């Protein structure tokens, strides 16, 4: 694991939590939307909070896919669950939501779980290479050897 790879994991966490918070903030402006007012739902992306939230979630998805390209799924999912902790902190300090004792207990459990997984290796298996992709992959591996 290089520093750059930890940065990608941090990006997954921060972009995901920030995107969700921005969406939450924006949708509070929009009010309750029922299924009969679907056109209103399309208009909500004109809300700057919602638009920013969508951009952050796109960044989250790109970082998540990048992490999955070199790490196990069972590594990436727990390692990036610190986002839930970040989300709770944003909810408390920026959105002024109530964070109860049970929630803090949940935050502690998640943090301990993250500690468990990040101490181990990121990748524990060889990437699946099927014959059809073999020719496809070769330029990359050759380039890496150069």
């Amino acid at each position, binding site marked *: 694991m290089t520093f*750059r790879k930890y940065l990608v994991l941090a990006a997954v966490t921060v972009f995901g939590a920030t995107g969700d918070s921005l969406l939450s903030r924006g949708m509070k402006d929009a009010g309750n939307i029922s*299924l009969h007012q679907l056109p209103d739902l399309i208009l909500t992306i004109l809300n700057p909070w919602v638009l920013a939230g969508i951009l952050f979630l796109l960044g989250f998805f790109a970082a998540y*896919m*990048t992490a*999955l*390209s*070199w790490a*196990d*799924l*069972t*590594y*990436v*999912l*727990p390692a990036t*669950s610190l986002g*839930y902790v970040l989300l*709770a902190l944003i909810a408390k300090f920026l959105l002024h939501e109530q964070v*109860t004792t*049970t*929630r803090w*207990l*949940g*935050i*502690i*459990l*998640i*943090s*301990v*779980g*993250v500690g*468990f*997984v990040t*101490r*181990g290796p990121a990748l*524990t*298996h060889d*990437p*699946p*290479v*099927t014959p059809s*992709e073999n020719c*496809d*992959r070769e*330029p*990359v591996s050759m*380039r*890496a050897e150069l």
Partner: protein
Amino acid sequence: MKQLYTWGAVAAIVLASTIGDVLLSRAMKQVGDVGELWRSHGLLAVVGRTLHNVNFVLGILAMTVAFYSLLIGLSWGDVSLVAPASASLTFVATAVAAKIFLHERVDPHRWMAALLVAGGVALLAA
């Protein structure tokens, strides 16, 4: 009866998002290390190779099913039950699926991590 529908929706979300995560993970392993690929072939090659991967497209499809199942589930049950129940069960389900389908070595540390995170997510909504 409504409770049965709600848990049915939770089951659908967990199943669809687990399938989605496994497919996306497999797709990105086939695409290869994104950082290396970007340096050697450029960003367009990364995007093109990813979008042309069958597993990636199927994974996105599964994630779409999961998202709509969530919307349907939210119309039947409370958000404070549906969202954390499906998120925490998905952590455990992906650990099992990654071991079986992606042949990841899920050692005791990783099982503990999956269970602790699942428990923590469940508590966040309590």
